[in-house]
Every structure is written in C-alpha cells, then in structure tokens.
C-alpha cells in the first residue's frame, strides 16, 4: 500500500493544503537560484537579520524589567537589570553590543551594494527600501539611547530634538510635539520608550520583510554584477545559480558562528567597547542642571555629527546631514552606467568608491575629537570629499570629452573654494584656519579629474564583461 500515508505526513499534508508551506520552502529556498560566486561581503545581510532577531529577543527581557520614568529609569537599568535580576547583565550587554553590531553589519551590507552596483536596475526599489531600513534603524538607536537616562542619553536627546527647532517657523512647535514638553523630560522618556519597543521595531520588521520580498522578486546581484537569469539552461535554471538551500544556508551558518565568536568576545570581555559602544558619561544619572562639556553620539553616528559641526549654521548643518541620506537614496539616479560591479569599472571610479568609506570613517575620527574650531573646519572639508564621492558618480556614466573633464574640474574646484570664500564672507572662519585643511577636497578634485585628463584610460570603461560569473576572493 504505497499510497497510504503515515500519520506525520498526513498531518503535514493537511497543513500544506491550507498554508503554502512546501511551496514557500521550494520557491524561496530550495529552488531559489542564488549566484554561486557570493564572497565574504555577502555574509552581512543574513547576519544583520540575525542581529535584528537578537535585539528583539534581548529587548523583550529588558523591557520587562525597565521603568520608563525619570526617577526610576537609571536605577532600573543599573540596579534592577544589571544587579538584581538573574543574567540581566548578559541580556543588557548583548543588547548594547548588538546595537553596535547592527550598525556595523548594515554599513558593510550597504557598502557591498555600492561596490557591486546592487542599486542599479532592476534593484532600485530594493535599495530604496534598504535606505528606509537604515533610517528607521537610526531612529530606533537614537530613541533607545535615551532610555538608560544617563547624562549622555539625556543631553544627546536634548541636542538632537533641538536640531528640529532650526526649521524656520514650524521647527519649535515640532520639537515640542516630539518631546511632549519644552525640554527633554518625563513625557519624552515615555514616548521614546513606546516608540523604541513598539513602533520602530514593527516598522523595521515590516520593511525588512518588504526588502526580502523585493530581493526575491528581482533576484540577488553578485560580485561580478552580471545577470545570472540571462544565461539559463534548457530547464530555465540559471547556469551560474545554485539553490539557496542548502548551499548558502550552510555557508551562512559558518558566517554566524564566526560572527558569534566576535560578538560574544565583546559581550563577555569588553561590553563597554573601550567607551565606544557605551559612553562612560552614561554612568552618571541624567542631570537637567548640568550640561556635559562634550556631548557626542555613539560611534555609528559620529560621521554625521562631524557634518553637523562642520557647518556654522544649524539649518544648513541639518541640510548637509540629511543631504547625505538623500545622496545615498539617489545612488540609482547618480550612477547610471550599465556596468554594475566595481571589478569592471575604471581605476578612478574604484578610487572614488574607495574614498566613500574612507572619508566617512575619517569624519567619525574627527567628530571623536573635541569641538575645536580647527576640528569643525577639518570636518567641513572632509564632508566635501564625502559629498564629492557621490556627486562625481555621474562623471563616470560614460566616457567624457576633454572639454567635459575640464568643465567638471573647474566647477568642482569652484564649489570647493566657493564654500571657503562663503565661510570667510560670513566671518565663520579665518583663512589661516581654512587653508590648513581645504587642500583635502581641492586635491581630491585634482586627483580625479587631473588624472582623467592626463591618463584617459584610467577613466574609461574597458567594456569587457565576463560571460559567466568568476571565482576569486575569500570564501569565493
């Protein structure tokens, strides 16, 4: 009696007829073709998903013991969670390290997309949803940072909610509406708690789901940037594709294991992360009457802090800061060259993409320093480089004539020096101070366009793309 089903199979079939279990498993995992040449950079997406789950799980336990009230919040964390509840310290350390890990993974995941052109057609929407995930994640981190009610929590939130007041006319009412008060206080803590544990996680989960659905609709890109679906065998299966399960599930398991070694090293041996993952000033309860001499965000927001500090006007500062998000969102519009992967783009393009994280990290280092005028000007000039790495992308869309190259060079230099002239004209900074660092963007402009004039081959697309994906790199 071969057609007689055993009981477990019958039960499964009963559910399978009513829920798309096996068809989902098949289409999304065992018959989902993933390119076979994923390299090290392709670990970070799944790891970010893992950290999201970790944050939700640890956050649940923290929320059980946390008191969203200014009189109790600080001590509910340091006494109730860390000292009085069993394993509370472990849960809290995991949540702290998890927050930083989330940002590190998301930054690496984004840079992977930038390097391999994963924002280009047909993945523009996928990229845009990713940017929204990043924005919600940033909001989630900012809201959560207030909850321990330490000095840096309090004053960090005070500074950020004050930014909003820079918007002409409606800024002040909006800031009061956000805080629920004229200053950061009880209503602020209550609503930040609700947003942090309820609204933002919900949004984050929904957006991550949309991100995954969009990914599976258009298919994964790969380090060579060539479309695997354009080369299929007679059954319609991409010749360069392998089933996601089991190949990438076993590979990601390896990635998860290695990630946990690093993650738990921090959790058990360095939960404060040299004062970078958790500011030391946060071991002082919030004091509304005592402003710390140096207020700065955690490491993952430091580059944006340098941008804000670099511009001697609150509104323009916020526009610079928001502009960097807008540039990220506009990547599909800026870079319209059909070649996706950095591997097959010209040398100067490679340098430009390389300078993107370099200037970003550089901004972070500057913001980590004290708020001297020198550091502010330094930050402004490196911000110009960061902006340039995005705004120069259209230059590489096709081969440019000599006249066009010279025009790009002149306009870019004029903008760089124009900003300094403007700063001088509004008496923001002295030339003496600005000349110390404005050679940085000026030289960068000279490097990209000067070399493209002298050695046109450095800015020329070779036009050679491989027929099939290629192996190479770590963990191919």
């Amino acid at each position, binding site marked *: 009696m071969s057609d007689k089903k055993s009981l477990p199979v019958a039960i499964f079939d009963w559910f399978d007829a009513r829920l798309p279990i096996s068809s989902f498993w098949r289409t999304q995992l065992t018959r989902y073709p993933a390119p076979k040449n994923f390299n090290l950079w392709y670990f970070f997406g799944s790891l970010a998903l893992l950290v999201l789950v970790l944050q939700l799980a640890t956050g649940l336990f923290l929320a059980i013991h946390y008191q969203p009230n200014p009189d109790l919040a600080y001590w509910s964390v340091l*006494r109730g969670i860390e000292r009085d509840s069993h394993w509370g310290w472990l849960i809290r350390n995991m949540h702290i390290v998890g927050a930083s890990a989330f940002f590190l993974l998301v930054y690496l995941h984004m840079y992977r997309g930038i390097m391999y052109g994963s924002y280009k057609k047909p993945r523009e929407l996928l990229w845009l949803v990713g940017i929204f995930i990043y924005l919600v994640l940033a909001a989630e981190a900012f809201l959560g940072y207030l909850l321990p009610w330490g000095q840096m929590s309090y004053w960090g939130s005070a500074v950020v909610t004050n930014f909003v007041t820079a918007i002409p006319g409606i800024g002040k009412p909006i800031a009061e509406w956000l805080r629920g008060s004229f200053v950061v206080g009880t209503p602020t803590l209550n609503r930040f708690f609700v947003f942090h544990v309820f609204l933002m996680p919900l949004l984050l989960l929904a957006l991550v789901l949309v991100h995954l659905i969009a990914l599976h609709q258009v298919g994964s890109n790969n380090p060579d940037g060539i479309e695997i679906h354009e080369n299929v065998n007679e059954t319609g*299966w991409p010749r360069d594709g*392998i089933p996601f399960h089991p190949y990438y599930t076993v590979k990601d398991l390896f990635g998860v294991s290695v990630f946990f*070694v690093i993650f738990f090293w921090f959790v058990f041996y360095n939960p404060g992360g040299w004062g970078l993952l958790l500011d030391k000033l946060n*071991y002082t309860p919030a004091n509304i009457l005592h402003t710390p001499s140096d207020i700065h965000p955690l490491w993952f927001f430091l580059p944006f802090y340098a941008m804000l500090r670099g511009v001697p006007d609150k509104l323009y500062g916020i526009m610079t800061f928001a502009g960097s998000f807008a540039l990220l969102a506009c990547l599909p519009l800026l870079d319209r060259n059909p070649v996706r992967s950095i591997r097959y783009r010209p*040398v100067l393009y490679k340098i430009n993409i390389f300078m993107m994280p370099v200037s970003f990290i550089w901004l972070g280092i500057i913001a980590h320093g004290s708020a001297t005028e020198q550091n502010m000007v330094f930050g402004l000039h490196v911000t110009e480089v960061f902006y340039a790495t995005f705004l120069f992308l259209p230059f590489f869309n096709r081969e440019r004539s000599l006249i066009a190259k010279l025009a790009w060079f002149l306009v870019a230099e004029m903008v760089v020096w124009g900003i300094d002239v403007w700063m001088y004209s509004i008496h923001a900074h002295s030339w003496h101070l600005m000349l110390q660092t404005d050679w940085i963007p000026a030289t960068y402009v000279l490097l990209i366009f000067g070399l493209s004039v002298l050695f046109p*081959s*450095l800015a020329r697309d070779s036009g050679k793309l491989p027929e099939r994906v290629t*192996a190479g790199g770590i963990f191919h």
Partner: protein
Amino acid sequence: MNHQVSRRAGRLLLLVLATGLLGIVSPRASASLRTTQAPLKQIKIDLNNKPALRNGALYVLHVCTACHSLQAVRYSSLTKMLGMHKSEFLRDIGTNGKHYHDLITSNMSPSIIKAFVGTTPPDLTDIARRHSPDWLYTYLTSFYVDPSRPTGVNNTVFYNTAMPDIFAPYQGLQKPVIVKGFRYGSPAEVAVGVKPLTQGSMTPAQFDRTARDIVNFLYAVAHPHQQQRERIGPWILGLFVLLSVLTYLIYRIYWRRVITSKERWWKITR
C-alpha cells in the same frame, strides 16, 4: 593587456592614497582647549584579593557613605564578593544600622550634604565605570592645600573639586607641585603633583595601601559580574570557535559539488 595595466595602476594608487591618508588621519592636539594634565598614578586591580576588598569595603561603607551612596548595591550582595559569611560580614563590617538586604544609601541626607559642600556627591556604584581606576586612585591621593577654596583643598586631577580632603587625618596635608602650563587654553599655573606637608596618622605606605584597597573595592562594586563573565566567556567562545570549524567543514563538503578545489573555478552545476 591594457586592462591588466590599469588594474595594477589602480591598486598602486589605492595603496599610495591609503598610506597618505593614514598620516593625515592621526588626530591633532587642539590648541584652543589645551589643558595641562597631571599624570595618573597606576593601580593594579585584583578582584581575588579578598583581604584588600574587605579593607576597601570597611572604608567605603564607614567613611565614604557618610556623604556618598551606593544606591544599586545591597549589603547582602557584598558578602559573596568579599568571601564572607553573613555573620562575619555583620560582625566585621556591619550595615550602619540598616537591614542586611537594604540598599547602601548615604548616612546624611543629600540636602544636608548639598548645603555643606554645594553639590550632591556622586553615587559610587558605578564610579569606577565612569572613571578609570588609575584616575580614581590618583584623585584620592592628590588633594593639596589651596587657601582659595572653601574647603581649603584642591585636587590635581579634578580642578576645583567640591569634595573636602577627608583623608587629611590619615594622610596628612599635601602641597602642590606647580608648573607653568595651560588651563582651557589659557596659560596658567597648574598643579601636576603633590608633596607631603604634614604627617597624618598613617605612614605613607599604609595610606597608599588604603587608597588602593578603596579603589579596588569600588572597581569590584562597579563590575559585579566581571569574574562570572570571564569564567563563562572561554566556554562560550570555545563553543563558537568549535562551531566555526564544524560549519566550515560542512560548508566545504557541500560546496565540493560547486567548486573544484584545484583551480578554484566553478564547476557547471545543473
């Protein structure tokens, strides 16, 4: 060929750029906020030294708690850290008349202390996470006579501190070692060290021991789970190292069908 050359040129350029940048990135000393710092004295923390921890606990719970609280710590949670039984703890250290499971609060009310010294003394629970042990040790031992202050003393690492020199009876008074330096960017005479002025009830070695024990205890209170963390840590890390090896082997076994190990080139699947 041309592609090869441009690839190589690109890598060279990246290398030059990266090394050049590293030179610039190094943070510069900012001129406008320069403050001459007194050097910190080094201290070695030893969480296993129970006699030192008990001595530190004695001073913190009987001297410091006159003004300071340790609001997140219960007397009962200290016994394990100090390696004592409840009866020993109650006999040798005591709870200042409070219940054994009570939180350690200051003996004077905060408002009275504020009237005395002008500010509320910080809670000491996590003071060793707020400041480094070296800083705390230097702070406790570096009060010097300064007639311009209401308390009559100042401190080399915490300029114009509101805390009076409660160690004076033990340590004796000290005078500053002054150098010409900067404070918040302006030239100023800065105390970078101290020298004994009068003799206290303890010898310098005894007092140094006491200060170290106090910092050792404060560190232990601020890091209540450090020993537990470091005991469990190797097992958890070991587990994931082992898992990494195993999952890597599984990955290689599965992927044998996809890549040939010889040329690291793709086999055509399906």
